């Protein structure tokens, strides 16, 4: 699975930098990185999520020749958080990726702005910045579901245990089935 995740991360960053970042929606560009990290966290758990966040963040910092460590630090937080959500709540609702994707994007963009601010980079703390963050969150929320589905398709065969499969299995093999209880 590690190789799959590595390839997924590389491809996602390349697609992000080569194509997605050139497309403007609502005056901003979509950011696939938090969505992919969030999806991996939701599907695979906190450790793969954190690793994916770190790796993709580092990759982005490398590719864009940015301050090394900023995106990876935020990515670790986002991936770990999404993974913990899966481990603690086991969310199964279809629309969960939208909410988590929006939250992940918000954490990523706000966290990046805060980091830049703390590092002394001239970050324009203005209405324009706030508007861009909100617009990015909205655009990413729209994209969250298809990105999650894509990542799920890539990662699912290698996951040791999937919440939905587990639930389905429980109903069909006795155990937790209400019919068997009766």
């Amino acid at each position, binding site marked *: 699975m590690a190789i799959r995740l590595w390839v997924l991360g590389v491809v996602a960053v*390349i*697609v992000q*930098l*080569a*194509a*997605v970042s*050139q*497309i*403007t*929606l609502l005056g901003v560009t979509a950011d696939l990185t938090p969505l992919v990290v969030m999806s991996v966290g939701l599907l695979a758990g*906190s*450790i793969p999520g*954190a*690793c994916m*966040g*770190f790796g993709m*963040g*580092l990759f982005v*910092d*490398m*590719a864009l*020749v940015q*301050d*090394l*460590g*900023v995106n*990876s*630090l935020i990515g*670790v937080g986002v991936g*770990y958080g999404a993974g913990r959500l899966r481990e603690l709540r086991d969310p199964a609702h279809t629309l969960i990726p939208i909410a988590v994707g929006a939250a992940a994007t918000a954490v990523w963009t706000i966290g990046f702005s805060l980091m830049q601010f703390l*590092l002394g980079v001239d970050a324009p703390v203005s209405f324009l910045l706030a508007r861009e963050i909100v617009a990015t969150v909205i655009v990413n929320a729209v994209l969250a579901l298809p990105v999650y589905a894509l990542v799920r398709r890539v990662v699912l065969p290698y996951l040791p245990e999937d919440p939905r499969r587990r639930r389905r299995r429980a109903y069909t093999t006795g155990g937790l089935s209400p019919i068997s209880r009766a």
Partner: protein
Amino acid sequence: MYDHNVRRRRAVLGGLVALSLVFLTAYFGESANGPLRSVQRGFLEVFAPIQEGASRALKPFSDLTGWVGDTVNAKGERDKLVKERDQLRAQATKADFLTRQNRELQSLLNLDSGAGLKPSKPVTARVIARSPTVWYATITVDKGSSSGVKVDQPVVGPGGLAGTVSEVAGGASKITLITDSTSGVSAKVALTGVTGLVKTAVGEPDNLVMDFVSKTDKVKPGQRVVTAGSRSSRLESLFPAGIPIGVVRKVDPGELDVSQRVHIRPYADVRKLDFVQILTKPNTAPELTAQAP
């Protein structure tokens, strides 16, 4: 087992965060030629061709999406511009209207002082309706008997004579314009005193005709025509003398060869009247001095 998992999870999290902070600190601490920056530059060297290839490969996709986005943006832009255009058009229309109104009122004012209409107690009235036919024969104004308006009082527009009052109500009056086929105004050429009867060339509001002008009278294009007026107790003219009517455009031989037809271009453009003045005391004024606009 649970403790092991928790410890492992926390260790991984702590390790990754620590690694990130190390990168961050080291990156900020090193010089421009430091090892991390060198690695970054090397990575860029390797990654750049891949990125270029990916960019080329994905260009049709990004172009397509960009085209969709541009189309949506263009549509929004178009709607915005259409709205803006409508607003400007409304403003321009209003400005045109006000300009014309201003010009007409200015003309009326000039006519008052220039042609000496003040003794005739002019009442300024706004045109509230006009004949929808092509003949431009009548208009309705917003002043009536309550303002002292009576039937047959002369009406002047910007520039010159416009018609006479033909119907009066309390707050409105109907004006029969000089271009109506029933209108007839005794007129004279201001310079030579040659008299005649000015009537309309039906359906041609820009063309009045002065009939009954003797062939021996010298009338030339460009000469000004004014109302003749009449103080005769037997047949008093409706119009005070000296109100400008128009300017001679051309002179034709008459049908009976004993008279000539003088074509006059009226000063008052009866198709574009917005304001007129009704002379409520037309015969109290001394003979007016014709001053063409």
